[in-house]
């Protein structure tokens, strides 16, 4: 498992994986921008916050060395998985590919480019990218992983063990769907509401005192998502509303990526997150008027600047 790890995508999640794993494995961070790769090659990746060290992965913009990788972690935005998988095609040998995107659908995109063993993962860790070579590690919550299609469970276990050894939290499980859908419903709601209101994930999201308080909308969105999961035959690992209340009580005032995307006028992941739930609701014949409204509003907001 330690014969070379490649991390594709140097955002917050990719940088956290690359820096930590570089302490226990040979790691290469595959970047899109040459100056990003140069900064990491020269300075390493500084991690502050929940940990304090400088990781020393190699960095490159060239996927040629991928051939011998044992593990590839695709940590791009959901919108960029297609391009990442296209890079793997023709480069990657027999290694395992792990996807950690928000929402649904990344595994199928990778599969369409090759027959590698795949792991599905969702991660709850979060941070803030302060520079190309510096990430503030904010929430040290775990990454959950499971075999995708006919991959072996012991590959998920050994990958989880490697991630734990590097200093991050991880857990292997036979079936990711209960955990993934818990996070999907959470993100579909919290990210969408944050993007539309400009609020970080703070106490407003759990307020229920007055009829117009935001908590009612958040809970209504999560109840719709839970009904969709139920219709899909998935029993959630965690109750999204409890996740929401706990996260707001922690007081970290997390800025969801969709809010950052809107403020930076970038395309958001709404099609893979809220949109994925809306499409599932349509397919399963479940009503989702609130999720549909939030999805349409975020798409409209994107249209105002894209």
């Amino acid at each position: 498992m330690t014969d070379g790890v490649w991390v594709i995508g140097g955002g917050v999640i990719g940088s956290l994986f690359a820096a930590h794993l570089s302490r226990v494995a040979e790691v290469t961070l595959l970047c899109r921008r040459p100056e990003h790769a140069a900064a990491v090659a020269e300075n390493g990746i500084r991690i502050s916050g929940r940990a304090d060290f400088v990781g020393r992965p190699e960095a490159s913009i060239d996927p040629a060395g991928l051939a011998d990788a044992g593990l590839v972690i695709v940590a791009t935005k959901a919108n960029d998985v297609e391009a990442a998988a296209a890079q793997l095609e023709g480069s990657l040998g027999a290694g395992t590919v792990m996807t950690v995107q928000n929402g649904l659908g990344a595994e199928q995109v990778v599969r369409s480019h090759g027959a590698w063993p795949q792991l599905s993962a969702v991660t709850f860790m979060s941070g803030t990218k302060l520079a190309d070579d510096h990430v503030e590690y904010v929430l040290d919550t775990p990454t959950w992983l499971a075999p995708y299609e006919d991959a072996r469970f012991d590959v998920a276990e050994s990958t989880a063990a490697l991630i734990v050894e590097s200093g991050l939290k991880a857990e292997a499980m036979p079936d990711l769907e209960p955990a993934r859908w818990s996070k999907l419903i959470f993100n579909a709601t919290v990210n969408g509401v944050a993007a539309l209101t400009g609020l970080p994930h703070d106490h407003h999201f759990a307020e229920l005192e007055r009829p117009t308080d935001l908590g009612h909308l958040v809970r209504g969105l999560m109840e719709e998502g839970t009904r969709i999961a139920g219709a899909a035959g998935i029993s959630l690992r965690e109750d999204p509303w409890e996740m929401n209340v706990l996260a707001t009580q922690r007081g970290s005032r997390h800025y969801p990526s969709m809010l950052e995307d809107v403020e930076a006028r970038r395309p958001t992941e709404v099609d893979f997150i809220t949109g994925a739930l809306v499409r599932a609701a349509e397919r399963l014949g479940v009503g989702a008027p609130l999720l549909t409204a939030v999805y349409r509003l975020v798409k409209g907001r994107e249209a105002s600047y894209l």
Partner: protein
Amino acid sequence: MRVAIVGCGAVGSLFAANLAQLDDVEVWAFDLDRQHVEAINQHGLRLSGAGEVVGNVRATTNAGELPPGDFGIVATKCMHTPSAIAASAPAFANGAVCSVQNGVGNEEVLAEHVERVIRGTTFPAGRVIAPGHVQWDVKGDTTIGPFEPRPASVAEVERLADACTRAGMPTQAVADARGPQWRKLIFNAATNPIGALTRLTHGRVCEDAGLRRFVSELVDEGKAVAAAQGIELDADPEELIDHAARPDVAYDHKASMLQDVEARRPTEIDYMNGGIARFGREYGIPTPLNDAVTALIKGLEASWGQT
């Protein structure tokens, strides 16, 4: 006849300056903007655009200076109604007070302070471009009628309508003025928050199939709440929304709530979608989507207080 305008912003100024053209009407204006008030007192209240008018209006920032009047016309933003009428009510001890504001719920507030209330809906629009000077963008009709729980008399309503009409602000007196009010309310509540949340102009909202459906869903909730109260709309908001989306009408118009959001001013959401939701709760009609946009806009307002 003496009329006092309470809140002499754009809409209030349209009534004030036009009414001041009549020999038989004395016009006062109460507004908290000191520069605007001083300019009005020094140079008169000037309108340009749809009409060129200068009105001789006596303006004050102190409601206590208002002499006893026959009519009040309240044109503040909705959230300022309680303080504005609390301060000016003594001037209307023997008069009737008419709201020409956006949204619903304003007449209820007026009725807490004065004896006789007139429900009004007005379509002319403009904007203050300098102290004492208002750009008159759009002409339009006004409909007024007695506010049922504390009504002004039919004769009073007709007298005010006649004066406004003679002054160049065509105004119709009706027995039940709720139809036009809810038609305007439903139009605004279905379009304003979507513009404000997406930052899109009216035309762009309407050409996005998903958002246009969302507009219709909001309209349908508003229609259901109106129907439950026995209100007959005087026109179909859907047709007005599509009409306004035409390139030659208001395709490029930014909803006033979007303008508020861009300027980080408090919006009138509590009296628009929030008002529909309140009446819905009272009449047992669910309004989940109006509740949702109310919560989103209030969340947006809350985000301005943060760093």
